[in-house]
Each structure stands twice: as structure tokens, then as C-alpha cells.
């Protein structure tokens, strides 16, 4: 493909991929965060153990996590149509992306929250802190670094999913790679999209790690 065609195509691809990744990550966190907090609270050793609630949430998360993304995408097409009005393109792809990523994100957050030293939580309880105070003033701030690392990994995963969605009508770099590189044998386009995906992943990783290091107060100076 000539370079003057390649550049606008790729710019569009990068834009759509970033759009899908960031919006999906955002929504996945909006759903995953409360889910993770509920999991941590209702766990057998949590602050408010609720065996039934915990088991149901735990099972739901596991079920969604075990469906391969492409299959999930097909399964939720009716829902995607309902929300986005159509089942193809970048905006529509956000629906299955969020559904696939939210349980994944919930597990990432859950594991970060569980890393917080139980002694610190006990200390807060001994001071008379309420459960919401313990969550928002102790557990989440103490887990901050780990949460940022988790967010970095999660958005990387979502970036990968978004590229995969290109196979069945999702937008962005994935779609470009499939329709030009695979369907039309334009290997040069395929290579460029792969390189751009690698670069995007690196950028996400570098930014995430930088922020987590900058905000962590546990490192001795």
C-alpha cells in the first residue's frame, strides 16, 4: 500500500483502538470496582461475610471469565444491537469488551484489595472506623499501587481483545489487520498494524509503571 494511503488509515486505526480501549477500560472499572468490593466484603474472612452473596458473585465472575472473548462477542450480539444500535464498528465493540473485561477487572481489583495488611484494617477497626471508612480510607488508598499496576495489565488485555474483535466486525487496528492483511494479502499493512499494537502496549505499560512507582510511598528513599 502506498505510504500516503497507509498513514491516514493507520491514524484512524490507532484512534479507534485507543477509543475502544480507554472507554471499555473505564466502563469495566465502573462495573468491576463495586463487584470487587462486594467480593472482598462478603468473603468468608471479609468485613461482612455473606456466604450466599459471595458464592453467587464468585460463580458469575468465573462463568464470564471462562467464555472465550470471540464467542462472548457473538453471544451478546442482541444486547450490543440493543445498546449501540448495530453490531459492528468501534462503538458497538465496546459492549462485549466491557462485558468480557469487567469480571477480569473485578478479579484484578479483588486481588489488589486482599493484599492490604489485615493488621492495618484491624487498627482502623480498633479506632472505631465504619466499614465504608475502612474501604475508602484504608483498603483502597493502601492498595493504590497494586491497583494501578492492575489497571495497566487490564488495559493491555483490553487492547488485545479490541484487536481480536476485528475478526468479526470490530473496528480499529485489529479490523485493518484482518481486512487488509488477511483478506487481501497486504502483508505490509499487517506488519504495520502489529508494530503499532506493540508500540501501544509498550506505551500503556511504561505510563502505568511510571505512575505506580511515583505514587508508592513504601519505597525507601
Amino acid at each position, binding site marked *: 500500500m502506498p505510504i500516503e494511503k497507509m498513514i491516514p488509515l493507520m491514524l484512524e486505526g490507532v484512534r479507534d483502538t485507543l477509543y475502544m480501549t480507554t472507554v471499555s477500560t473505564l466502563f469495566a472499572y465502573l462495573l468491576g470496582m463495586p463487584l470487587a468490593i462486594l467480593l472482598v466484603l462478603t468473603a468468608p474472612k471479609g468485613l461482612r461475610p455473606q456466604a450466599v452473596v459471595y458464592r453467587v458473585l464468585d460463580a458469575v465472575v468465573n462463568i464470564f471469565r471462562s467464555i472465550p472473548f470471540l464467542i462472548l462477542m457473538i453471544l451478546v450480539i442482541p444486547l450490543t444491537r440493543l445498546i449501540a444500535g448495530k453490531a459492528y464498528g468501534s462503538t458497538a465493540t465496546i459492549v462485549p469488551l466491557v462485558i468480557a473485561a469487567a469480571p477480569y477487572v473485578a478479579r484484578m481489583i479483588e486481588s489488589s484489595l486482599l493484599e492490604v495488611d489485615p493488621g492495618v484494617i484491624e487498627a482502623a477497626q480498633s479506632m472505631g472506623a465504619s466499614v465504608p471508612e475502612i474501604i475508602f480510607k484504608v483498603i483502597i488508598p*493502601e492498595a493504590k499501587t497494586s491497583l494501578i499496576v492492575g489497571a495497566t495489565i487490564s488495559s493491555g488485555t483490553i487492547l488485545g481483545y479490541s484487536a481480536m474483535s476485528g475478526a468479526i466486525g470490530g473496528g480499529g487496528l485489529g479490523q485493518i489487520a484482518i481486512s487488509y492483511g488477511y483478506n487481501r494479502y497486504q502483508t505490509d499493512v499487517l506488519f504495520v498494524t502489529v508494530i503499532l499494537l506493540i508500540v501501544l502496549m509498550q506505551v500503556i505499560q511504561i505510563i502505568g509503571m511510571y505512575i505506580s512507582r511515583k505514587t508508592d510511598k513504601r519505597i525507601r528513599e
Partner: protein
Amino acid sequence: MPLIELRHLTKTFKGKTQTVEALRDINLCIDQGDIYGIIGMSGAGKSTLVRCINYLERPTSGNVIIDGKDLSTLTPKALRQLRQQVSMIFQHFNLLQQRDVRGNIAFAMEIAGAKRADIDKRIDELLELVGLTERQHNYPSQLSGGQQQRVAIARALATNPKIILCDEATSALDPTTTTSILNLLREINQKLGITIVIITHEMSVVESICTHVAIIDNGSLAEHGTVESVFSQPKSKAAKKLIFRKTGADGGIIGDRMIRIVFEGNASSEPVIASLVLECHVSVNIMYADTRDVGGKAFGQMILQLPEDKLQQEKIIYYLQSKGLRVEEVDGDAH
């Protein structure tokens, strides 16, 4: 009226296969201004006991009465408010790692609903008290263990509590730091009149600052009273075991006749053993000797291994008793 009263306290942990009785029928009164040591071997139930005092652990039965309030009758909200009056410090300090020294102290006051301006003023006072003004913007990871425990103490004092519970607060510290933390606690007790309950497995902690001591053994209260009375005349097996733990005279005691003599007050300054040897023409083997300064009063004790000869043994005991010392037989209980 005692400030803290424990009535028939029991705590049972039910596991899938077995039930553990962590506490059995504990009755204890702690008065305002006491520094009350609760000592026991590890696994004796003392950590569970201290957590029952602020209801971090709910007792299986029995009552905890603090300042006239029975904790079992309190609503969750009232219990949280009461906890602002009963602070706690921990073996591993349990500071917020992502907040600096000021932030950690502020945390306790935020929970108590204090105003920002009051918080800042109070933090300045507390930093002065615990001697960490220069470290106020450091994070816990930048502080030594002793400094971190000082922050924890400042945090515990932030809400002007009546009681401070210490759960093995010096066990993770070296001896010098332990002494300085204990001195700080004594200062807080004397200056501010705060009642302190200290959970420890170290006899030296009790000796150095406690006014009263309770000995917990296998979930039960073995013995309690003032430190002087318990240390000079331990009655229970558990108390003797703890007090003599440092003898290092384990081997060789059994079989031979041993006596323990207790010095109280003036007697400890007289060269009794030297006189004994000179006047009775006998030899004794000193297995263990220790003089302690407890609450300003000196007392000491010594374990002597007596000669084989029965007559000589009687002579020695008679001589010591005539000097006004208490003489006890030492048997297998002593270690």
C-alpha cells in the same frame, strides 16, 4: 468502680473439626490509672483477651464493662464511638503505609470526625510528645521500628482516650528501643492518667513498668494482683514458670534438695549468703539469683542447692529463717 471489668469472659473458636477454648471464665478488674500487664506463654489466649476488651473479638459469653458500659448492649455505632476512647497499639505498628506521619495521626481524628484545624493543632502537640516533629513528613517505610511505634502511640493518643491497649507492642523492637517505648508509655500514664493494658510474653516488660499483673495460662486466669505480690510470692504453677523462666538452672535441680529464699526490703542489702557460709561452716551452691527493682521497691530471690547432709540442710534453713527471710522448697514446679 473499675474502669475495665471483665466478668466470666469466655471465648470459644469453632473450627470445622475442633473447638478451641481460647478463654475460660476470666474475671478481672482494671482501675483508672493502672498499668496492667497481662502475661502468658504464646498461645495462652492473651491476644484474644485484649481483643475482647474493645470487642474486636466478641466474647462467646460473659461481659466486658468499660466505664460502666456493658459492651454487649451497645449498638454498632455506639461501639465505634467507644473505641475512640479505647485505643490500641500493635506488635507490627499497623501504620498506613501510604500516609506520612502526620497523615497517620490525622487518620484517627478523621475517623472521630474532628475538624481540619483541630487536627493540625493536635498533631503538632502529639509530635512533640512522642519526639517526632522532625520526622512529620516521612512515610512509615522511612522510619525505624521504634519511630513507627511512636507514631502508633501518637495516633492512639489523638482522640484523648481513657485506655490504651498494647498488644505485644515492644516484641518487635530491640532492647534499647523497648526501654524507650516503655518509658514513653509510663510518661503517658503518669502525665495524662491514661490506663494502660499491656499484653506481653516478656517478664521484663511487666517488671519495668506495670503496677499490676495477670497471668494467663491455657485460657484461664492463673493469678493476678500487684506486681510486687505476684512476683514475690507466686502461687500458681504458671506464675512460677514465668518468673523462673530465666533461671537457666533447668538441668540438675531435680533430685537434689533446693530452696528458694526471698529477700524483701532491707534484707536484700545484707550479705546473707556470705554470713551463712562463714557462720554455719557449710557450702551451698547458688543456682540462680536475681534482684529486681519493682515499682520502686527492691526485692530479690535466690535458689540454693543444699549439701547432701540432712543436718546441715536444717541448719541452713534455720539460719536463713532467723534472718527474717522466707524459705520455700523448690520442686519440679519451678521450671
